[in-house]
């Protein structure tokens, strides 16, 4: 078999060598607890503060506006539950507003708020994979405590109009959160330019380790912690800090930001090359969200009518090509994508969906090979006569 090709960068990425090197001293030599008074503690604390500052700078934020988290899921939960639980008491705002295409972390946290008594509001989507701003506007009333809209959709790669949505939310006194896990390093993110109040990012999507992330919290945003304990991170996130991961995350964030424009151009090129090659050979392939006004460069989600994605992913993997379907449940089996359903894709097409996500491990040659393997598998699946079944 030729070298395996990883096309699942939206799922996770390898830790970058620079990140690994930056973290290395903090596993053993500089192992201190940042809360300790002695030299070991000071050393760790300095590294932590510097890391936080560098992350802040990369987001257009101040250091005290950054909370270190375990990743996107924690950030999403902290944003929605932390704000709603505070504001339902202090401001009498009991609604949570979000979209049906969010990551399960946002949908799950919103659902949890609903279980605890929140008014759950889900705005509509347009078929192109973008939020229907009219319904967002209509639902964004003064009863809403927090609104959450993901910047880049993790399944189909569509970019939401965060500038306008955040501004609208602000005009109604709504705290606005955006899950920017897939957006960081792909779109320009600057807290001084876009009026979001909260923003979550995850380390492992940008070359830092799994289990670390950061959350931007604009000064003055009402938010109670999820965890209770010590005074670390101003009490917003108690627990001994993962110093090495913060140092690694800071490095990854800086690299991703510095390389953004070049990488976006490169990834868009790969994606366009792939889509053209595939459509040339499989003209009826449907690329979800392709008509959105803005798309992230690294995600393409394709359905080939009549081909089931489960079989296709197996066949691709056995040829050394790793892609994914929309969403996977814990057992590793597939369930129909809630994102595709929300943008009006029927069961048959959504059952055929394959997400290809490009990144650091890809170049033109592997894109060409994948397009060719994928289209030949499609031909085979479609050419399979019933007689083959019991040959």
């Amino acid at each position, binding site marked *: 078999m030729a070298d395996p090709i990883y096309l699942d960068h939206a799922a996770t990425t390898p830790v970058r060598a620079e990140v690994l090197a930056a973290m290395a001293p903090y596993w053993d030599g500089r192992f201190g607890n940042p809360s300790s008074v002695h030299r070991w503690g000071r050393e760790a604390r300095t590294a932590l503060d510097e890391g936080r500052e560098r992350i802040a700078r990369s987001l257009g934020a101040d250091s005290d506006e950054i909370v270190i988290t375990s990743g996107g899921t924690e950030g999403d939960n902290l944003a929605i539950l932390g704000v709603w639980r505070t504001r339902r008491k202090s401001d009498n705002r009991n609604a949570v507003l979000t979209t049906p295409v969010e990551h399960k972390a946002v949908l799950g946290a919103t659902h949890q708020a609903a279980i605890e008594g929140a008014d759950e509001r889900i705005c509509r989507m347009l078929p192109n994979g973008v939020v229907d701003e009219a319904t967002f506007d209509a639902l964004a009333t003064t009863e809403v405590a927090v609104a959450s809209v993901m910047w880049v959709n993790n399944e189909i790669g569509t970019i939401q109009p965060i500038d306008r949505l955040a501004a609208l939310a602000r005009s109604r006194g709504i705290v606005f959160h955006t899950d920017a896990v897939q957006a960081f390093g792909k779109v320009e993110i600057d807290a001084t330019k876009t009026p979001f109040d909260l923003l979550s990012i995850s380390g492992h999507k940008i070359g830092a380790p799994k289990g670390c992330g950061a959350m931007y919290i604009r000064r003055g945003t009402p938010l109670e912690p999820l965890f209770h304990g010590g005074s670390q991170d101003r009490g917003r996130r108690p627990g001994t800090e993962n110093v090495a991961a913060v140092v690694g995350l800071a490095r990854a964030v800086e690299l991703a930001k510095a390389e953004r424009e070049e990488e976006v151009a490169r990834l868009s090129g790969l994606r366009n090359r792939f889509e053209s090659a595939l459509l040339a050979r499989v003209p009826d392939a449907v690329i979800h969200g392709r008509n959105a006004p803005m798309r992230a460069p690294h995600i393409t989600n394709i359905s080939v009518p009549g081909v089931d994605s489960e079989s296709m992913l197996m066949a691709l993997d056995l040829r050394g090509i790793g892609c994914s379907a929309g969403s996977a449940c814990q*057992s590793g089996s597939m*369930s129909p994508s809630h994102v595709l359903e929300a943008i009006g894709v029927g069961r048959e097409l959504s059952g055929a969906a394959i997400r290809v996500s490009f990144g650091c491990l890809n170049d033109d040659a592997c894109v060409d090979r994948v397009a060719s393997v994928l289209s030949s598998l499609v031909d085979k*699946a479609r050419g399979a006569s019933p007689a083959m079944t019991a040959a």
Partner: protein
Amino acid sequence: MKERVLVAMSGGVDSSVAAAMLVEEGYDVVGATMKLFCHGEDLPDRPCCSLDSVNDARRICQQIGVPHYVLNLESAFGRDVVDDFVAEYARGRTPIPCVRCNTFTKFRDLLHKADAIDARWVATGHYARVVDGELHRGANRDKDQSYFLWGIERAVLGRMLLPIGDRSKSETRATAHRLGLELIAEKAESQDICFVPDGDHTKIIRERLGADAPSLSPGPFMLADGRVVGNHDGHARFTIGQRRGVPGGFAVPMYVVDIRPADRAVVLGPRDALLGSGVIAREMNWLVDAPQVGRQVEVQIRHRSAPATAEIVRLAGDEIELALQQPVAAIAPGQSLVVYDGDRVLGGGIIEASRRARPGLPVLAA
């Protein structure tokens, strides 16, 4: 390397050993665990289908160096197996979902997945054998599972591998140890129906048909002469030959001898009334060329019963009637009738009715 084989892996010892043996024999093995039924998120571990079982199968595959996939066959399984299970109980019958799972899920739907990955073969951990294109009993009679396999399409036999069919359970466990599969070598066997993990099959009937389903609603216990001798709380709780839950106070032990869904009646009778001298089955599927009327064969009307000698007295379309040489007790509609010639499985079908050995005599209450 030999041809590719897709192995259905439950995470248990049988299918794990089957996969490992095929690796040893040089096949290009691909493991797959079928997700058939969702128990909900917080059910504790079950022998089959649960998350832990999937994880066990994945770990075994990692250990033996083959890829593993989880296949979501929930909707097809729900339609082909669970819906039928519920409908059969509603009709007063006693279905065997494993038969339909083998027929439709493992050896049809899974075969389609095998096609998609160019796998020449499909393998399972069943205790049965394929010999010269025919299905045979497992070599070890105690574990023989051929009774559950009669429904597969005949042509599928040419693509089936049953690697552990010539051994006993203890040999399978010994092989697991020899191959270092300690994770699952002593794993408890699943006895239950996978979607009825606690043994209470009425739960799924209630879920699908509602708590007020006629088969779960009160009805009379009757004797053959129509006398009502008590009440039960749903005929779906009963099967032909059952004693549990039957009222006492009779001169002789009483059994369920008939279920009449039209009037929700569970008919009771003495042991004699359970005896059948003939059996009628439908949906017959032949795994060899269909035999002729008059042919003497062996039949099994339930798993683990001794084969009974019988003569084919009628064959019409997919229906068969057999005369039993000796009466057989508790022939239950919905169970499988499997026709054997020694170890060879000739075919099978679903029991529709039995011919009573003698008319039920009135039984007097003590």
